[in-house]
């Protein structure tokens, strides 16, 4: 695990690291990923899914309804004229 890789991963994750953090996380990740090499010798299998149990698609009737008043969701948000405020795009 080199510093450039950690910097690239941090940039992707939108986290700015200090020099100290960069070196500390590089060292930690190297130690952790070295341990994870154990997975290389783990048995393989087919028919694996992303959940530990069988999950079915459950759909409700397509009827409009409102569980939560949108105004209650907006009350603690930083808004402007009813729109959520955010940074500029360019």
């Amino acid at each position, binding site marked *: 695990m080199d510093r450039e890789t950690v910097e690239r*991963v941090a940039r*992707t*994750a*939108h986290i700015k690291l200090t020099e100290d953090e960069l070196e500390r996380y590089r060292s930690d990740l190297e130690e952790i990923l070295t341990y994870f090499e*154990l997975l290389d010798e783990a*048995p393989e299998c087919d028919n694996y899914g992303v959940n530990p149990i069988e999950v079915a698609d459950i759909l409700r009737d397509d009827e409009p309804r409102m569980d939560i008043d949108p105004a209650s969701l907006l009350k*603690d948000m930083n808004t402007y004229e009813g729109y959520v405020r*955010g940074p500029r795009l360019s």
Partner: protein
Amino acid sequence: MIGLDLSKLKSVNDKYGMFHAMTEKESVEGSFHFSAKDNLTSKDMETCSGSRILEGYRPAFDATAIAKMRAAGGELVGKTNMDEFGFGTFSANSGFEVPRNPFDTERACGGSSGGSACAAAVFEDHVSLGVSTGGSICCPASFCGVYGIAPTYGRVSRYGLIDYGNSLDKIGILSSKATDLRKYLGIIAGKDEKDPTSCVQPDFNPGYRKLSSVAVPKEGMEGLSKDVESAFRKSLETLESMGTEIEFVEMPSLKYAMPAYYVLATSEASTNLARYVGMRYGQQEGDLSLKFDDYFTSFRSEYFGDEAKRRILLGTFTRMVGFRDRYYAKALQVRKVVIDDYKRILATHDAVLAPTMPFTAPRFDDIANMSALDAYKADYLTIPANIAGTPHMSVPCGYGSDGMPIGMQFVADHWDEEILLSVAEDWEKVFESKKPEVTI
């Protein structure tokens, strides 16, 4: 233990630090009182999931589990401190207060539902909702000497749970009384159209079944402290005297569960936490003149804690093109292998049994000297059941030479909470658990 007196709640919390937020009422009006881990949304109390990035977030809705407890007459008295987003084994990775063990306040409660275990140990007739992703109910239950159950993945709706790992998160119960597990799991279990993974479950009508046989994986006996091994072996003798057959078995997949878990959990967490960017909830006071990349980065860099950043980096790395098959896809295969191993053993045994944690609650100064990997390795006994989504439960089973509680963990087949609830009730009749001396 002490009775819950709302006028003294703040004083108790000053000593033990179990609550992030507390009720402002002066008396309990409900028919029972409960607390809930702070990653479950609650209408009347701030919900931060242990993270400063969510400071100020007051949800507009209750998590289904909290709503059901309230509908049953329960009164929510506090939201419990926890590791940030559940990222930890000792609740020491909190962005706020770190809960202190009621048996020795120099020691940790365990994590990540540490505040919940602390509240369950300190207050009489109190039940707390916890959440387990990799052992976050059983670990603190063990360290604080209480009963804790994490049901089958999907048994309790995750609606209103602030996600850590969607394929791993499970809401459960912690209490000093075994009979509370059945009572309150019965309240929060059930289908909920707001969480499709809860809708495939069979009905929850647990009866009583005597524990006939347990399998003890030999791999689960490795790396234990002397105190834990001694207490566990004594408990096996007690189980035998109760008529339970004990068989030591091989479970070779267990050693792969820990790395597989951390790959899956951090992969899921790194995507789940992408939503925290200084907009909509929590911290929102930033420099809006910044470009959006810089704006998002400024919040995440300032308000995520050390372990959250580490797990985001790890999870982002293991999902990257070129590494995904080696890590994520292989971890999914290991999960299937672990499930198959449990099914094979549980075809001829009622439960799989091992100590819950390899040691008693560590001191905070020892925790500070642990590397990240050392802390991850401490979870090796609780992770397998969590990665498999199988129900599991920690019960108190002894005390170390340091006076700290020791727990053992039963694992049952998917949807078979019945055997765990039965075991807990039978065990409580033969094991005399100690209550912490609470002084304020």
